[in-house]
């Protein structure tokens, strides 16, 4: 079987603790989708999911990357980091549960809405993580 080729492929490195650049990747994803003429409501869902995932890498991880593939009918975003992993994924998906740092709270985050909000805005979501390992989040949103 031939693997489907995306129309656009993007890659962004995300630096741990960098609240100045955090959000730039999602901003660029938004611009790419706008150029493709995707519906605004869909773009907003993609932006929220992508931005939450990006900020999660900034807040919680040792650093990572986001890989974006835009196809005719959907967008796939992989947000991956190098650790330290999520202890309890089910708990992390509970609204209000947060392990955010004081620095993250000063920036307006840490309400425990990140992962639940990603879930609410995606059509398909996979979270692969365990304590002491990397976290890989795969998000799919259909146009």
């Amino acid at each position: 079987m031939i693997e489907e080729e995306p129309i656009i492929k993007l890659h962004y490195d995300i630096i741990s603790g960098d609240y100045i650049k955090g959000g730039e990747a999602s901003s660029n994803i938004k611009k790419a989708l706008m150029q493709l003429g995707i519906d605004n409501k869909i773009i907003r869902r993609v932006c929220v999911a992508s931005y939450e995932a990006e900020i999660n890498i900034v807040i919680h991880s040792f650093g990572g990357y986001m890989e974006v593939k835009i196809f005719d009918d959907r967008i796939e975003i992989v947000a991956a980091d190098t650790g330290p992993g999520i202890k309890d994924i089910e708990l992390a998906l509970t609204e209000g549960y947060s392990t955010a740092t004081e620095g993250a709270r000063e920036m307006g985050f840490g309400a425990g809405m990140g992962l639940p909000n990603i879930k609410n805005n995606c059509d398909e979501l996979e979270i692969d993580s365990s304590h002491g390992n990397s976290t890989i989040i795969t998000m799919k949103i259909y146009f």
Partner: protein
Amino acid sequence: MKIKEIKELLDIEPITCCDKLEEDIKYAFASDLMSDVLALVNNEVVLVTGLVNIQTIRTAEMKDIKCIIFVRGKIPDESVIELAKQNDICLMCTKQIMFNTCAMLHSSGLRGAEINK
């Protein structure tokens, strides 16, 4: 309510994007917590906040928020203003506290955002 009317009501000068003054907005959302803005805001709103950092602008960008009112006399720095300009977001600053700002906006016809709950 037009952004121009918000400016007149609060008696302040916008610090960015004066070309948005004729835009009409019906709803407002007030919060210092960007997580809640991202999770709950569902329609076009004016954001009332005391949080003046770059992530406030990023959050507004992701949610298509066109106007932000910074309360309690908070002034954003140049990098924040620059990012708002790049994204055509109208920024205003008032010395009023959030409660008074919201009360004035509500009295003049703005309504609370319909939220995702």
